[in-house]
């Protein structure tokens, strides 16, 4: 399946990634192979979902979830220690000028 360059650029924006011109061309070929590989779910027999009834594809039994009550949390200074921080906040370059 051919994937348009514009479509890849759109996906990259959604994924917060960017590819240079040449890089995108190279990436496109491999990506098309991956999509073709995934099209394997359309296998004539095994991929026919018309007869699937009553299938529960959930992984979690929602009735088993605990009550949404506050639990002890991690110490703020420890959490901040892996990023650039100041005065108890993570810092990034000024957004509002």
């Amino acid at each position: 399946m051919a994937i348009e360059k514009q479509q890849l650029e759109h996906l990259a924006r959604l994924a917060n990634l960017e590819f240079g011109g040449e890089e995108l061309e190279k990436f496109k070929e491999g990506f098309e192979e991956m999509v073709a590989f995934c099209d394997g779910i359309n296998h004539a027999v095994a991929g026919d979902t018309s007869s699937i009834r009553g299938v529960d594809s959930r992984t979690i039994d929602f009735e088993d979830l605990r009550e949404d009550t506050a639990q002890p949390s991690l110490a703020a200074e420890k959490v901040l220690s892996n990023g650039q921080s100041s005065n108890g906040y993570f810092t990034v370059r000024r957004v509002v000028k």
Partner: protein
Amino acid sequence: MSGKIARFSAMLARGEVTSRQLTERYIARIQKLNPVLNAYVCTTFEEALIQADYADGLIKSGMAMPLTGIPMALKDNICTEGLPTTCCSKMLQGYRPCYSATVWERLKAQGAVLLGKTNMDEFAMGSASETSFFGAPKNPADISRVTGGSSGGSAAAVAADLAVYALGSDTGGSVRQPASFCGVVGFKPTYGAVSRYGLIAYASSLDQIGPLASSAEDAAIVYDAIRGSDVRDQTSLPSAGGPTPLECDISSLTVGVPQEFLGEGVAEEVKQAIGAAVCAFERAGAKVKKVTLPAFEVALPVYYIISCAEASSNLGRYDGIRYGFRAEQFGDIRDMVIKTRSAGFGNEVKRRIMLGTYVLSSGYFDAYYKKACLLRGRIRQEFARVFGECDILLTPTSPTTAFRLGQKPASSTAAYLADICTVPASIAGLPAVSVPCGIGEGGLPIGLQMIADRSRDDLVLACAHFFEGVAEVKTPLCREVQL
């Protein structure tokens, strides 16, 4: 036949050796052999010796548990408070988590000794550990071969005796396939049997932590130490108390052999080794039955659609703000996130994020993600039908033995075929183990996979234990790693 952990524990209890001496022996082996194998990406020798002294204190005061004082390793995607945890990615270079994974807390509570963190595919995405930012680990049976992946460093460390046991994580076969390639035991428990808290997420509905060890008995001891419910992981399951029993009456079992797992692409030497393993069960009185799992045909694409979809969401958290790598040159804050992610992730990770974004995007969601979820349900139903007829399934772990390092696959998706035998159990959340069952051409190990019904982890381990006793496969180490 006693496993390595029980033997060392007995020696520690009798005072024939101390945990410090045992740890020093392992440190010396790592210092000598890790430059060859690249199994560890970070060593924690100073902390290990402190933990060993603490363990010796526990032993002296009569408070030893099964894993007290035993030197071990963790895959580099399992969080260890204050120690580097990088997922072998540039994105997490320098990251030191401020909390520990539940599995490591449980092992520490037993007095375990951590030697270091092991090599893996970047963010566990791969089947050869070659996508690691730190370079690929090498197979101790032949250092020109891959270890398998993604828990390749853990498998190599156990195979070369650079750790008594190690933990890995298995999303589509990442514990079992490297165990098969390196000639050790690799066990993926039932989904939820072991808490995933502190395991850096790849695909949350598939990820499961499991042990790599030199015997099924050792794998069971480690499993017993790490399993059980955890309030911090809502998918974790409660478990029965007491050790997993390893004895079972093989003659009362019906062994299923799924025909689809022995089709095209499976090497002749692998088919022969699996055939011999099936005969071993038959000789012990088990009834053998050929079974079919037609949905096997779609298992690989279903796996890649679901795992990449979940990965694209899970890896959205890497923005260069809270931890890890941050790009140096950028414009505004959005540009910082994009530049950070584009430079921090390797090619395979970017490919999977993009594929996951594609199958979840408007216009493609129903055709790919929704359909894959439906087919996941069918795969579960087929396993349920098969486990109505038999107790355990025997299959190859991998269609081939370990391939050459740097071998270029025929296409960008050809490498995914290495997972073809392991993904079905992952999709269905079933317990499965890989045990060495033969030695192929070039002295390369062959693995036998055993799959049981949900929560029958005990049966999987008991069958593995039985098979080890009758097969007695010894994986040779290559010349370069013999001391």
